[in-house]
């Protein structure tokens, strides 16, 4: 018997009678991470990794029935032994390990694996988990997606910010409010100038800080008394502010977008920003291959992203591969604004 199958409500574990990141309301939902397309409102019971608790409650409401597990801690439910393991994607993101009658399946959710030494400093790093069947995401499942070392990317962001500050103009850096924004804040050289954050980002910063993640001091616009401060500032905001009234107060700011999609020239040009920084919280192509190999799984099921490509590639590598059709956001590029991007509750990550 397969430990995870597709159902109309979402991915389902038959022996355990619970769902994983369901897209329709169910009684029992195991949540890999708190992005809006994976953690939806309306479920009876939620189970998530302990570090995710703050963000889960901030987004889904303080009154949800939420049970948490520390990474590695196990739980028995109807003969299924369940544990959560870090995925490196955002604060509290987890892979779900399911063990039943000697067989082990792992559902990855979204995860970040890139070059050696490239870690997301705002959450626990991806941990390979041995299994028989690995259910993997494939957001960047094409060989053209290969991330540069992140110190290089942050070096480029710092250089851009420094040059703008010297020229007396603000640096508007856009990235998704949950996950990307905090990673940006943790990665830049906060000595260059003041950092201003959008309200949506600030709400999540609090959850990160409460979970013990160190972030540099930031200002909210209302706290900026002397407007001249803005001319040296790095402004971190969700993409939905682009071309809107909120950014007009920064005058002739230089604008930039940080996302894995910025790897391709076409996507950069469609965004129409001064700079596109290629920084993703998802695995790149080599990272996907490395992560899959590290599980030792003989069977791989591919979800949201380039499923068909990955399935054919994995089959050519001698693995048993197939795809699940999910309803997680798998926008193949950024041409469309993500749903409610400045509303922290409805925002996919890239």
């Amino acid at each position, binding site marked *: 018997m397969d430990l995870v199958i597709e159902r109309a409500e979402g991915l389902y574990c038959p022996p355990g009678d619970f769902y994983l990141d369901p897209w329709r309301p169910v009684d029992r939902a195991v949540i890999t991470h708190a992005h809006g397309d994976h953690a939806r409102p309306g479920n009876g019971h939620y189970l998530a990794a302990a570090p995710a608790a703050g963000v889960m409650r901030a987004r889904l409401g303080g009154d949800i029935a939420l049970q948490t597990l520390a990474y590695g801690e196990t739980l028995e439910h109807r003969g299924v032994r369940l544990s959560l393991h870090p995925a490196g994607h955002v604060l509290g993101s987890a892979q779900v390990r399911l063990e039943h009658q000697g067989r082990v399946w792992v559902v990855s959710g979204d995860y970040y694996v890139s070059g050696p030494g490239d870690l997301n400093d705002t959450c626990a790093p991806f941990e390979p988990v041995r299994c028989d069947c690995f259910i993997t995401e494939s957001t960047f499942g*094409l*060989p*053209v*997606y*290969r991330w540069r070392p992140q110190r290089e990317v942050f070096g480029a962001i710092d250089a851009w910010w420094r040059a703008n500050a010297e020229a007396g103009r603000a640096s508007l850096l856009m990235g998704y409010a949950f996950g990307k924004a905090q990673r940006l804040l943790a990665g830049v050289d906060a000595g260059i100038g003041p950092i201003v954050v959008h309200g949506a980002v600030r709400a999540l910063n609090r959850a990160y800080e409460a979970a013990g993640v160190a972030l540099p001091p930031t200002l909210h616009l209302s706290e900026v008394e002397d407007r001249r401060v803005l001319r040296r500032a790095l402004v971190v905001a969700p993409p939905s502010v682009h071309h809107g009234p909120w950014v007009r107060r920064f005058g002739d700011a230089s604008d930039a977008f940080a996302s894995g999609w910025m*790897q*391709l*020239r*076409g*996507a*950069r*040009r*469609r965004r*129409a*920003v*001064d*700079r*596109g920084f290629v920084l993703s919280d998802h695995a790149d192509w080599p990272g996907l291959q490395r992560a899959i190999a590290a599980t030792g799984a003989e069977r791989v099921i591919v979800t949201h992203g*380039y499923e068909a*490509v990955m399935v*054919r*590639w994995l089959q*050519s590598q001698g693995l048993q591969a197939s795809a699940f059709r999910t309803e997680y956001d798998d926008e*193949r*590029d950024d*041409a*469309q604004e993500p749903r409610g991007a400045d509303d922290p509750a409805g925002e996919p990550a890239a």
Partner: protein
Amino acid sequence: MRRFSQLFDELDARTATTAKVDALKRYFAEAPDADAAWAVYFLAGGKPRQGVPAGVLRALACARAGIDDWLFEECYQAVGDLAETIAHVLPPATAPSDVGLAEWVEQRLLPLRELAPQQQAERVARYWDELAPTGRFLLTKLIGGGFRVGVSRLLVQRALAEHAGVDAKLVAQRMMGFTDKAARPDAARYRALVAAEGAGAAAPSGQPYPFFLAHALDAPLETFDARLGPPSAWLVEWKYDGIRAQVVKRAGRTWIWSRGEDLVTERFPEVEAVAQALPDGTVLDGEILAWKDDRPAPFALLQRRIGRKALTRKVLADAPVVFVAYDVLEWEGADVRSLPQWKRRQLLEGPAVATVSPAVHAATWGELAALREQSRERGVEGFMLKHREARYGTGRTKAEGTWWKWKIGPLSVDGILVYAQAGHGRRASVYTDYTFAVWNRAPRDAAEAQAAIDAIAAREPAAPGALQLVPFAKAYSGLTDEEFRAVDRIVRQTTVEKFGPVRSLRPTLVFELGFEGINRSARHRSGIAVRFPRMLRMRADKPLHEADTLAVLEAMLGE
């Protein structure tokens, strides 16, 4: 290459013109002259001949990346550009270098053509291994002969002018012929571009002038009087559909330059003969046209002639060309571009030096509009309106005076979107290339049309004689980015089948399509081929059963 890559990244990223000019100026200030010469050449549209065929580059990239061609194809479909796909799939560089642009081009790129395929592959693989992704992308573009960047020639001229502290018009003139296929940029030619004014920068003897370009006039006739004043203030001529050219006669020699600034003297011996007869110190601006039966022949005939390598007697007889002059830029050795249009026209008509584009006279715009209706029969595209006081400007400016092109409206039909394919470049991964169909006959009513649509959605083949849609044109321009995004969403929602990169759709959208000409074609299923099809607008108001029919297209053939 590192410096040129950085310049490219800046030009590619920045949207503001001043930022682009600043980036160019920084580059010119830092780069050695020999490198800057090549940079100007490429940025201004110069293209070296293809060094290695695209297929060879692709196969080599697959081998280096350790991927199969199907996977490369998937990548290419997502990226929308061959060179960029190659740049990204290759493993990271292991032997970074910092060789200058001139050395890259002269020592490495240009010699590739002469090598055996095996050697080509070895060298290209080695070169890729020296470069970061942008460098690889540029190198591959240059090798493949497809380099383009989002700066206009005018912008490059402006940056050079500001860098050198000379007048932009002078730079423009010095740059004429800089990107000619036969030319090879070097440090000396670059220094001549940026030399101080009057400092030994004498133009090479065959150099033409920058072309003055017209703006499209797209306003209702009623507004003409208010906007343009009376027709008597304008020189009105027919607008020809040929090859814009300058004929230069100096010191007993002749040169013919196309608007692409290629020297085409040998391609058109008939025009060269005309030029020979001109007095020394004359430069004429005009149009090269294929000419038959006392009128311009369709552009297709001229195109066929351009495509021929050898100008045999048969080619010359099948597509004879003429040069129709409409302006004089140099007269008796002096630059006369700052004379008003009417005065230049006098010079042109004076001693009967060449065939002159006839002036059209009418008292009112209404009369001209009526005459303009004859354009199709006359084989022209409408009228040119040149202000009688206009000086001859540089490029598409209005500072010196105005030229309008007042073209006839396109033919148009309402077609139904049936297939879509993702675009390239900026439109990669967005469905922007569309195929349109008309009904094979008029639907009896909305219900019959709906039944035909349902059959398509259910993938049922149409019964013989039944109502069906006949594809007749492809178009990919005419919509705004926002409209393309809206159509892209509908394409994704209404996909019936995927054939490689092409999606067949359940028809839901009607578009008004415009095109310049229409001919019978045995190669198209509809039996019809249209020229320059494009989307004029989405017809959200139009139900599918009211889209046009094949009979409407056939009536336009005018046979």
